[in-house]
């Protein structure tokens, strides 16, 4: 009894505090409200400990919760994520539209066929060489310069350029940073809105930002959106490779010299594709056509000039007059007046090179042109000469007197001689005529010689009396030619050319 009482007392003595605490714990465990507030107190701390298990445990919970929430009332989630998605969508749409407009512009620009003419006009207007404008115009785009800029200080880390430029890259780098700061301070409400493109005249500056560095590309022309991706990739690579150097940067750009090849790779360019190659056959066809046309034109021109030369030659020709000339049924025609003494017009044609069909209508006439007149006079003179030389004045044997009935012939001969003198003068011939006396072989030579002279003298005297020119001479023939007298006429061209 005592012992059990004692034991009880001892137990109480020893365990009362524990007992009370157990009771308190019991009470606490029973009390739901208490437990909730305990969890509330401990939970943030547990989550904050960043145990991977926590994230794993929460993930399905959050996913399920989110799904449930969207199913029940999507507006809540929309409201939450709109501030993030809105600007992103706006940006994406804007850039897609801009890309479309750019490519559209390029297409219309390229399909403009009178491009060459435009360059010429621009060259004329600006006084610059056509080649320079062509170069500029046929450039779709070119990344002229790339700057790697330390984001915080705006100090230039490294730059690459297509060619040496006079611009101060340090200052450009600083200014670009200042402009970005200005734009951000002045226009953006949120940090996410940044300046990513500047346009200055023909140039654009595309700016890509990373956490520590900025890459700015100076571009001439309309670069495709792809170029932005190239720049962005380069910036990403640089961040990955030089992350530590970038965060530790204190003004020494030397470690970034190694980025030069990466920057050089951003200096892209694209030239307008050359006009589509014309198939060779078209060139041959065109050449053949041009050849034919040229041949025809030259021929025609030659033909016409030869025809004109022929007509001119006809006009030149003494005794020929071109009355009219023209074309009929593809043939060349001419109506001519031609003196019978003039050259045959077709002779001239043979000399000339006129190839075309020609129809000549030749009518005869008497020309009074001096050459033709001279020719006619010569002809007549020759005729007279023949007539005069055919005359024979007969004598009786031993007589130096001739029968009176021969006077009629002598009168005619005298007239012919006078006419001959006139004709010779007109036709620029030198003329001479001699009366030649002759005998038969009967009788001695001395007597015969005298007789020959006397007979010639007698005839000459009678001729002169009848009106023959006094230049007429008389002489004895060298040999016996019968009892007669004849008249010899000599006509020869007058080298002096003097008529009278």
């Amino acid at each position, binding site marked *: 009894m005592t012992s059990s009482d004692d034991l009880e007392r001892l137990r109480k003595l020893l365990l009362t505090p524990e007992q009370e605490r157990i009771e308190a714990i019991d009470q606490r465990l029973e009390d739901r409200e208490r437990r909730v507030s305990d969890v509330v107190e401990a939970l943030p701390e547990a989550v904050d400990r960043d145990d991977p298990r926590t994230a794993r445990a929460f993930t399905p919970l959050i996913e399920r919760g989110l799904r449930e929430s969207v199913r029940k009332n999507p507006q809540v989630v929309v409201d939450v994520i709109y501030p993030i998605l809105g600007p992103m969508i706006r940006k994406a749409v804007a850039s897609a539209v801009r890309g479309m407009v750019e490519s559209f512009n390029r297409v219309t620009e390229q399909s403009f066929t009178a491009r060459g003419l435009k360059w010429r006009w621009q060259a004329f207007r600006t006084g610059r060489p056509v080649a320079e404008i062509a170069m500029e115009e046929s450039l779709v785009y070119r990344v002229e310069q790339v700057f790697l800029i*330390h*984001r*915080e*200080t*705006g*100090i*230039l880390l490294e730059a690459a350029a297509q060619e040496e430029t006079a611009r*101060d890259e*340090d*200052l450009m780098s*600083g*200014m670009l940073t*200042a402009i970005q*700061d*200005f734009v*951000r*301070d002045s226009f953006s409400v949120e940090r996410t809105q940044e300046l990513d493109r500047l346009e200055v005249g023909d140039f654009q500056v595309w700016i890509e930002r990373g956490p520590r560095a900025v890459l700015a590309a100076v571009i001439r022309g309309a670069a495709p959106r792809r170029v932005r991706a190239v720049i962005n990739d380069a910036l990403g690579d640089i961040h990955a490779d030089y992350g530590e150097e970038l965060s530790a940067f*204190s*003004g*020494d*750009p030397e470690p970034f010299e190694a980025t030069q090849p990466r920057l050089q790779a951003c200096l892209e360019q694209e030239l307008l594709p050359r006009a589509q190659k014309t198939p060779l056959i078209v060139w041959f066809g065109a050449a053949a056509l041009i050849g034919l046309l040229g041949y025809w034109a030259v021929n025609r021109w030659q033909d016409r000039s030869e025809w004109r030369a022929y007509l001119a030659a006809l006009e030149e020709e003494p005794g020929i007059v071109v009355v009219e000339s023209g074309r009929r049924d593809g043939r060349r025609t001419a109506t001519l007046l031609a003196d019978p003494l003039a050259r045959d017009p077709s002779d001239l044609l043979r000399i000339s090179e006129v190839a075309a069909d020609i129809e000549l209508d030749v009518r005869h006439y008497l020309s009074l042109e001096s050459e033709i007149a001279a020719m006619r006079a010569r002809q007549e003179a020759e005729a007279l000469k023949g007539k005069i030389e055919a005359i024979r004045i007969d004598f009786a044997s031993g007589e130096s007197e001739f029968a009176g009935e021969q006077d009629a012939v002598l009168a005619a001969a005298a007239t012919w001689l006078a006419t001959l003198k006139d004709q010779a003068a007109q036709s620029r011939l030198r003329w001479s005529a001699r009366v030649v006396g002759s005998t038969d072989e009967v009788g001695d030579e001395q007597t015969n010689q005298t007789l020959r002279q006397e007979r010639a003298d007698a005839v000459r005297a009678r001729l002169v009396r009848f009106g023959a020119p006094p230049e007429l001479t008389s002489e004895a023939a060298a040999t016996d030619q019968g009892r007669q007298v004849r008249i010899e006429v000599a006509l020869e061209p007058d080298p002096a050319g003097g008529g009278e």
Partner: protein
Amino acid sequence: MISKKICLLGASAVGKTSLTRRFVEGEFSDRYLTTIGVKIVKKELTVDGVEARLILWDVSGEDDYAELRMSYLRGASGYLLVVDPTRKETMAKALDLDGRVREALGDVPRLLLMNKADLREDWRVEAPDAISERVVETSAKTGAGVEEAFNKLAQEMLKSA
């Protein structure tokens, strides 16, 4: 070569642009042209045998109409506060700016330039004695003290780098 960004700060018309012009180009003009936004110039110099490139951000002066854009100060390794002692209020402005800038940039090297030293008799204010070792008297007009001021700042910046 080490590049360092430094800012010139102060009330408007105290001579920030004139100081940079005197320092960079060795020139001075009486004409006053207000700086809008920021003007950036560059000067290379050798301090204690180290070649350095100073990128000077000549920030437009703060006045009643324009507040200083703190974003221009980002990444600066040092700054110069410019005071025109002929105008008392410019000293208060400089000290006020100093407080704000230190908050943003931390404890970077800085100097207080008492400009217009050529007009000493017209000075209406003196620099507080407490910061006397951070004060340089300059004259953009005569060039006095200008090189020294920039050199001193560069020296401290390179040392702290």
